[in-house]
């Protein structure tokens, strides 16, 4: 069953633990600057948005890559970079609309979320559960239910 990461910024308290565990898992050191997930400070106080790769169905990074190093892995519902093909031209970095394709100057490599091969550490360690790894179907159900609720209230009011 395909799963995906879902963030609820309303629950995020901006502790930055996701950044710590992400860099620790991928880079071996706890360095938020090398994290695939970044907590962005919103304009209003107390609003934090954990930003990670959206694993787009039609990824712009994949479109611009001149070496076809970026592909979609349907099994784990993710977009992957093949470092054997990557030439570090940074075109994907320029193309990503979310700004989550990043570049490690030290290693000369792009880096992005890879769902930790099916066990995202950010979701595992997020205490307020602002990040969750859920089945895509369930997420769709939640969205449909919310939409139905939005419609149900005025309809009931009209009927009464």
């Amino acid at each position: 069953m395909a799963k995906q990461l879902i963030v609820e910024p309303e629950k995020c308290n901006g502790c930055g633990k996701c950044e710590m565990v992400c860099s620790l898992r991928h880079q071996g050191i706890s360095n938020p600057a090398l994290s695939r997930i970044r907590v962005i400070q919103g304009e209003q106080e107390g609003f934090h948005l954990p930003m990670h790769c959206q694993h787009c169905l039609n990824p712009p990074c994949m479109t611009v890559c001149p070496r076809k190093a970026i592909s979609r892995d349907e099994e784990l519902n993710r977009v992957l970079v093949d470092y054997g093909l990557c030439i570090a031209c940074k075109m994907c970095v320029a193309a990503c609309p979310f700004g989550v394709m990043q570049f490690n100057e030290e290693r000369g490599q792009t880096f992005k979320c890879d769902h930790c091969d099916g066990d995202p550490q950010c979701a595992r360690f997020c205490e307020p559960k602002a990040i969750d790894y859920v089945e895509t179907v369930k997420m769709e159900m939640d969205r449909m239910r919310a939409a139905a609720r939005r419609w149900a209230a005025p309809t009931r009011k009209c009927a009464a």
Partner: protein
Amino acid sequence: MGGTHAQVCRIGGSQMSSFIVNEKCNGCLACVQNCPNRALDYRDHAGKRVLMHNMGLCARCGQCWRVCPEQAVEFRHLLESPWQEVVALGLTACRVCGEPVYTFDYGKKVSEKLRMPAEALCPAHRREKGLRVWSRIRPASPPSPGGAR
């Protein structure tokens, strides 16, 4: 030859200054004879002897410098390699802060591939844009906690 100064061939009009002989060179061609990779050659033409050097073949072994009976080869220049400018391209600056992001042609290429204009943003402002894009596409109401039964 009477004190004729050997001329060093200039490649493609650019200043090929790596192999230099001083005024002591008398054109004996010992260096040409002893170069293990035949990076040196000469031509006798119109009353002049021209000594030629090919940087692509030169292994910088120093044999020419070692054999030269007049100490005319200045080997030091073969080891010095100054940076040469290859090309200069116009830069596109970050739309917000003005920091150079990439070249103009690079941005054009990305825009071409995306079939829409690419926004030139530095890493910090790229992240802020993520927030903007997200608030545009976010679900109208957040999923209710424990919604699925």
